[in-house]
């Protein structure tokens, strides 16, 4: 394990996708860091490589070249199962279009990341209800996702990302499917979570969202500019 001074450090990152004989460089060259308790927005146009960057930071996507350190852990020197454990402990994901499990209730969706942790049922319930209350959905805990509005579904997705109390929350276009009023509410919620100590990294192409962040990283043609 190498001691690094930042929460996340990215060194010489490169990611190339190959489809048949065609190679596409999603990330050409990236070196940057993110400190603990920062609220970062990663901005860029579609196809700029920002979502690929997010998935690499989330231990989901093996880079072609370079290293990613999170809390001094060299992510891609870990085995696939160790990376799964890392995601469970360190990362809360908020996906584009919410990505809730349609046959599970709000409470069950929120408890999903805890299905593979060892806590007791009572503790799990309490933790899930706490975060559901935190996002203001306690009255709808037993509803199915399709019985909720877009904003409410986004809140469930945030609650699910928060439930294991991960230090890092990665959000991919969290406001992409919401009207501007609801989008602002969601960003305020993320801002308040950041103030509670979570490091928030949001990928978006909406420039208005940058105002909620403590720092913005611009991504263009697979390269980043702080």
């Amino acid at each position: 394990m190498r001691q690094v001074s930042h929460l996340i450090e990215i060194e010489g990152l490169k990611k190339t996708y190959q489809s048949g004989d065609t190679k596409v460089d999603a990330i050409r060259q990236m070196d940057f860091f993110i400190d603990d308790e920062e609220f970062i927005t990663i901005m860029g146009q579609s196809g700029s490589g920002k979502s690929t960057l997010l998935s690499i930071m989330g231990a989901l996507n093996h880079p072609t070249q370079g290293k990613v350190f999170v809390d001094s852990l060299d992510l891609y020197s870990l085995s696939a199962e160790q990376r799964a454990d890392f995601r469970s402990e360190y990362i809360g994901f908020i996906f584009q279009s919410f990505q809730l499990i349609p046959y599970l209730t709000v409470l069950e969706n929120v408890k999903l990341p805890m299905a593979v942790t060892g806590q007791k049922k009572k503790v799990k319930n309490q933790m899930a209800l706490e975060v559901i209350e935190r996002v203001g959905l306690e009255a709808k805990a037993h509803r199915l996702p399709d019985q909720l509005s877009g904003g409410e579904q986004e809140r469930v997705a945030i609650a699910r990302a928060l439930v294991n109390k991960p230090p890092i929350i990665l959000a991919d276009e969290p406001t992409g499917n919401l009207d501007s009023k609801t989008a602002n509410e969601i960003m305020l919620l993320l801002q308040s979570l950041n103030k509670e100590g979570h490091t928030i990294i949001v990928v978006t192409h909406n420039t208005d969202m940058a105002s909620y962040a403590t720092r913005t990283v611009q991504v263009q043609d697979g390269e980043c500019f702080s």
Partner: protein
Amino acid sequence: MKLHNISFGNIRRRKGKMLFLVLGLVIGISTVVTLLSITESMTKNIEERLNQFGANIVMVPKTQNLSLNYGGIDVGGVNYKVREIDQNSLQSIHTIKNSKNLSIIAPKILGPVKVNGHNVLLMGVIFEQELALKTWWHKTMGSFPKTPDQVVLGSRVASFLKVAVGETIHLFETPFTVATVLKPTGGSEDDAIISELAAAQKLLGKQGKLSMVEISAFCQGCPISEMTLQIAEKFPDAKVTAMKQAVMSKMQSIDMFKSFSLGVSILVILIGSLLVLVTMMGSVNERTREIGIFRAIGFRRGHVMQIILLEAMLLGIIGGILGFCIGNGIAYGIIPVVMKDGAFAGINVNLGIVSIVMAVALSLLASLYPAFKASNMDPSEALRAL
């Protein structure tokens, strides 16, 4: 929240697909259960019929007598030495290894008696055993003997001696009442007078001796040949013969049907497994996004496999129970149609347990590859579909 909640939830959500999968298992299991139930009923039915055939092991004293009998025509034999079986030693038959398979033991004494100046065959039997063995003995009128001074006449003897039921005949001067006359059987008993064993032994001066013993020992899996050897070992002075041709030919037919059933069962089970495999593969492909989410939020490969295999196990249990019930139902309905006088052998609990275990094993085996594929799904690839 546990992994099984996800499995249950998915089954509830994809009812149609899961029903299709269960159907594959039900078809396989019910076919096996139906065929096995029919085979079991056939075996039971044939057992019962063979039991009605009478003895299948005959024990006679060893003699140096050459048989001069062909096609029922006896031209006499040269008796160098006649031996008889000791009645007291008969008890040792119950010490053979397969003694629990002995059903009826019917000892008898044979000898000629003078009646109205004619030589007639006297057969001394234990009526209780004999009537259990000779289910084709039917009386014309009266009843079978209840006391030692009563006899039964064969149909030809009765007409030859012109004796009717209730009349008295004298065997070596001893009076006996004719309790009943048998309807013609076409067998040796048509020409015989049948009395209680002890009375016949006394009349013939052969107290404690037996001319022959007929043994009925048919039951499923009874090793008739082996039992014959076991009895012969106990009675070195007796010749023990298995009348197994009838049993063998019937059992061969059942064995052929069993082989056919096995072949059909394997084929149907293969088709059922294929159905499970295809349905599970479809289900996994449909759930790419969902599996991507599971992996992204920290599920290990093993957790994903557990979810899929848990579903397979649950559906296997449902398929096994349904298949067993339906299979028994079909067998119940079909046996009277395919078998004359056939009756459903009853519900076999062991077969029920085997059916459920088999359905679960089948479902798990067929789901192993889809589960493996799901668990090995690259989460980034799965999430690219988001």
